Structure formats: structure tokens, C-alpha cells
């Protein structure tokens, strides 16, 4: 009976993850894509970075699942601190993107070409696991709509282990949608590509920063 219940929970979470996966991908895409674009060309480095990103994202999921189960379904729906959480996570994402955008060019020189500024700014980075981990974890706890749906469902389960298992299966369903990002490994890495990725990270940091600040201001003004 328990096995049947477990299987039902797993299939429900997996299907939920598969069906809402495109939304997850779209939601995390702005963070994943610039990060992957600065990785050296090749499937191995991209697989490694994506694996680290997804592992950290899974950790974020688990933290949220535990919190959702402990506090109950009220977290996503009526929790008064939701705007603070949204705003805070957005600001942290902005900060992480800025930090890694600033760090990318200093890591390693991409080529020995003497073309000055473009090579300096667009140098390929040394793969840094901390970047994928930080960005993965922050996107993992980012409250996107499919995530909230899964959170509500997990909170209704009887045991904490059940909630964690539900999120694990939900994660597996959504993670499949991230595999297309591996195709970026085939893209030729020129200094221009890395520079564009860095610019994208800065622009997205501005967007997340603006989003976070406006949420916090709104929360402060309107309660």
C-alpha cells in the first residue's frame, strides 16, 4: 500500500515537473544561458557545469520542500513575508550575476591575439564550480509558478520524507528541460561571445535588481 502511494506521488510529481518544465526553463534561462555561454567550448565542461547547477538547484528545492512541509501550505498563498522573499531572492540573483560577470574576464586570457580591449573583456573564464552552485541554488529557491504549485502539493503530504521525495521527482521532471542548454557546448567560443554573455549578465542583474527593489518598496509602502 505504501509502495503504491509512493509510486502515485512520484508519478504525480514527475508529470507535474514535465508539464511545467518549459516554464521552469524559461524562468531559469536568463541565469543559465549567460553562465553556460562563458564556459569553454565542449560537451564535457558544459555537462559538468549543468550538473553542478542542477545539483545546487535540487538543494534549493529540498530546502524549500522542507520549509513548505514544516510551515504548511500557507507559505505560498498567504504568507505575509512572500514579497520580502521574492525581492530578497531577486536582489541576491542580481548580486550573484554581477559578481560573476565582473569575475569572468579576469579568470584567464582566451587567446594570444594582441587585439586589445575585446580580448581583455571577452576572455574565456576558468570554470568555477562556485558560480554554478550559487546560481543554481538561488534559482532553486526562486518562487516561480510551477514551484509554488509543487510547494502546495508537498505541504499537503503526511511526512517530511514524502515532501522531499515529491520535490525530488518534480525536480527530475523539470531537469529534463534543461538538457537543451548542453547544445551551447557546440557553439564556437570567440571573445565576442564571452563579451556578449557578460553584457547579458550585467543587464539581467539590472533587471533582477530593479525587480527586487520595486518589490521591496511595494512591500514597505503597502504592507
Amino acid at each position, binding site marked *: 500500500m505504501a509502495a503504491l502511494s509512493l509510486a502515485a506521488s512520484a508519478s504525480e510529481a514527475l508529470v507535474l515537473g514535465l508539464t511545467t518544465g518549459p516554464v521552469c526553463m524559461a524562468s531559469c534561462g536568463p541565469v543559465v*544561458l549567460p553562465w553556460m555561454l562563458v564556459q569553454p567550448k565542449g560537451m564535457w565542461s558544459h555537462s559538468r557545469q549543468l550538473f553542478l547547477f542542477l545539483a545546487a538547484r535540487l538543494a534549493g528545492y529540498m530546502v524549500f520542500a522542507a520549509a513548505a512541509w514544516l510551515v504548511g501550505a500557507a507559505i505560498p498563498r498567504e504568507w505575509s513575508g512572500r514579497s520580502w522573499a521574492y525581492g530578497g531572492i531577486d536582489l541576491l540573483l542580481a548580486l550573484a550575476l554581477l559578481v560573476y560577470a565582473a569575475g569572468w574576464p579576469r579568470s584567464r586570457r582566451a587567446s594570444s591575439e594582441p587585439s586589445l580591449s575585446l580580448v581583455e573583456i571577452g576572455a574565456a573564464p576558468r570554470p568555477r564550480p562556485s558560480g554554478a552552485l550559487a546560481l543554481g541554488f538561488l534559482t532553486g529557491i526562486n518562487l516561480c509558478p510551477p514551484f509554488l504549485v509543487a510547494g502546495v502539493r508537498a505541504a499537503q503530504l503526511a511526512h517530511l520524507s514524502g515532501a522531499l521525495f515529491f520535490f525530488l521527482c518534480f525536480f527530475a521532471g523539470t531537469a529534463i528541460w534543461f538538457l537543451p542548454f548542453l547544445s551551447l557546448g557546440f557553439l564556437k567560443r570567440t571573445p565576442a561571445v564571452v563579451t556578449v554573455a557578460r553584457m547579458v549578465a550585467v543587464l539581467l542583474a539590472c533587471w533582477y535588481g530593479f525587480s527586487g527593489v520595486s518589490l521591496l518598496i511595494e512591500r514597505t509602502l503597502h504592507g
Partner: protein
Amino acid sequence: MASRASALERPAFRSIGRSLLLTLPIALWSLLMFTPTFRNGSRALSIGAVAVILFMTGLFFLMMRTGETYRWRRIFFVALGFLFPIGFIASLIAERGTMSIPISRMVSGDTPYCFMVTPALILPAAFARTIVFPGSILPTASNPHSIAVMIGLWFAFTLVLGKAWCSYACFFGGIEEGFAAFSKRRRLHRFVTRYGSILRLIPWAILLCVVLLSAALFEPVYCMWLCPFKTVTEFPAVRNVETALQFGVFVTLFVGLVVVLPLLTKKRTQCGFFCPFGAFQSLFNKINLFDIRFDREKCVDCTLCQTSCPTVALSKESIHEGKTLLNCMKCGACVDACKKDAAVWHLKGTPVAVKPERARLLFLYGAWALATMFGGSILANSVATMVHWLPLK
């Protein structure tokens, strides 16, 4: 671009008879385009159509007669840029009484489609089967400029002409080209030349951001936050802090990128250093039929072509390789500026600098047909609006 003096000194490129003969297809095309207007349109619109036929045919004749492209194309393009808002805003005021878009119009999908949003539609359409633009997919009585019609037109011409769309059809680019033409001195030239390699990457970054955020938020982020041309077309009604902020961004970008910087640099700064649609359009330069090439045997590395390029689509390295960069808009400025005839029009798959005038003619027929069809109808509408304003009985 050739100066007026040098153009006048230059002997006629073709005889009048031959130029007229070459202009005949464009004259017939223009007549064909405006035949429905003569049949069904108002008197003012018919006057507009006649004016546009004469204008477009006349400019094409001058292109044939003088052998210059950029100078005559610019007259059309600047006219399009400055007249488009007149007709468009007048129609908005007549219909709604305001330039702002009411929410009800967005909900009912009556917003006229703007091609600038095209790249942002791709991901949401592919993954969620959702069009993130408040317009109708198929034409309706109230909104003939539907998404399907506009994308179909754009795609057909883009396949043939590539990024030439940005120099012959975009009704926004003419505004900044006009401001760039006003200025006599070329300021910030050293800055633009030195940092051109970085500046021309910005549109790609904005394109990626816009595409990713539009997919994440399910809204046309460029239209909502970044389009400078909302200032001279339509924009969400200012009702709260957010919409006030959006309007502030639109005006700031317009004044900065479309007015001030083109006046200072004599470049199309919005097109060259900002427009994400332009970056998207550059991709089609890889597969279209025409490009500009450089005959290395004639080239003396004077960099006149590089200086004349309005969008920084040339670098010393690219000229050395005998081609333009990916963001070339095929405006013809470099070809006209080159005194050694080293910069030439080229039909892909044919030898470089062998019968370049034939490549130019083939390109111009396509580009001018597009200009007449797309820009011509806009111009006719704007002229008709002005005819309405005239105190004539």
C-alpha cells in the same frame, strides 16, 4: 557618402533614356501598389499616392542616372522616418483621442503589430504556444496589420535582402538618420572607432536579454520597457509609478539614442548600438543573396568607407578580408564613398568585382520594391493626413 560637390562634379553615370528604361519596372510596380488606393481611397489618399509614386520613381531614376545609392535612399528613408509618426499619431488621435494604448485594446488584441517584437515571440511560441503580443494573429476589420501578415512580409523580404530591411523598410531608422544628417561635424569619432568592436556587441546582448526575459515573464519586454520609438508612436497609458517609469525610459532612450548621439556622431546610434531587432536581422545577412565586398587590388586603405558607415559595420580587419561585418545594412554609403571603386555590390556565388553594377541593380529592384510597398503606403497615408490638415475646400 559622396559629398554634394563631388556628386555634381561627377559625370552622369547613365544616359537619361537608359535611366528611364531601368526605372520603368519600379514605376509600374508603384502604380500596381497604389491601384487599390485610386479605386477605393479618399481624394486625400489618392493625392498622397500620386505624390509617393512620383517621389519613389524619381529617386530611383536618380539612383540609375547618377550611380549613387546612399544619397537618394537617405532622402526616402528620412522622409519615411519623419512622416510615419505624423500619419500614425494622427490616426491614433482620430480613433482613440490619445497616443496611449487603453488596456481594453490590448485585451481585445487590437494593437497594431510592430516587427520589432518578432524575436521575442519565438521562445514563448515554441514552448508554450503563446504569442506574447496583444495583437491578433490573423487580419481583422479593425486591425489589418496582424501578426501573420507582418511576419510573412518581413520574412519574405528578409530572406532575399537580409539586413537591408533596416535601411529600406524600417520606419524608425529614418528619424535618427535624419538627425545624423543635420550635423555637419563628426564628433566622438575617436571614441566610436576605438570602442566600436564593443559597442556593436550591445544589440546582441540586449537581444538575448529581451528574448530570455520575454519567455520568462510572458510579456514583450522590449515594448514594455526599452523601445525608444514608443515616444513617437503609442505607449501604455501612464497610470502609476511603473508606467511613469516606462514612459521615462522611452523618452530618455529616444532623446539619447535617436536625437543627441546621432547629432553628435553622425551615426545611426540606436540602430548600431542598441536595436535588438537589428541584431536579429543581422543573422539573415548570412543567408541572403547580396552583400558588399571590397576589391583588395583597388583598395588603398584610406578608411573613407569605414568613416562613412552609419552603423560601424566595417573594421580595418573586415576591410582587409574584403567584406563587411555581419551588421551591414546595405545602405550603400561605403560604396558611394569609395573613390577607387574598391567597395562593390556583390551577388553571392559570383566573382567579386565582376559586373558589380548588375548586382547593385538586382539588389535595388528588390529593395526599392520593398521600400515602395512598405514605406510607400506609410508615406501616402501621412501625406493624406497632411492634405486633410490643409485649409483647402
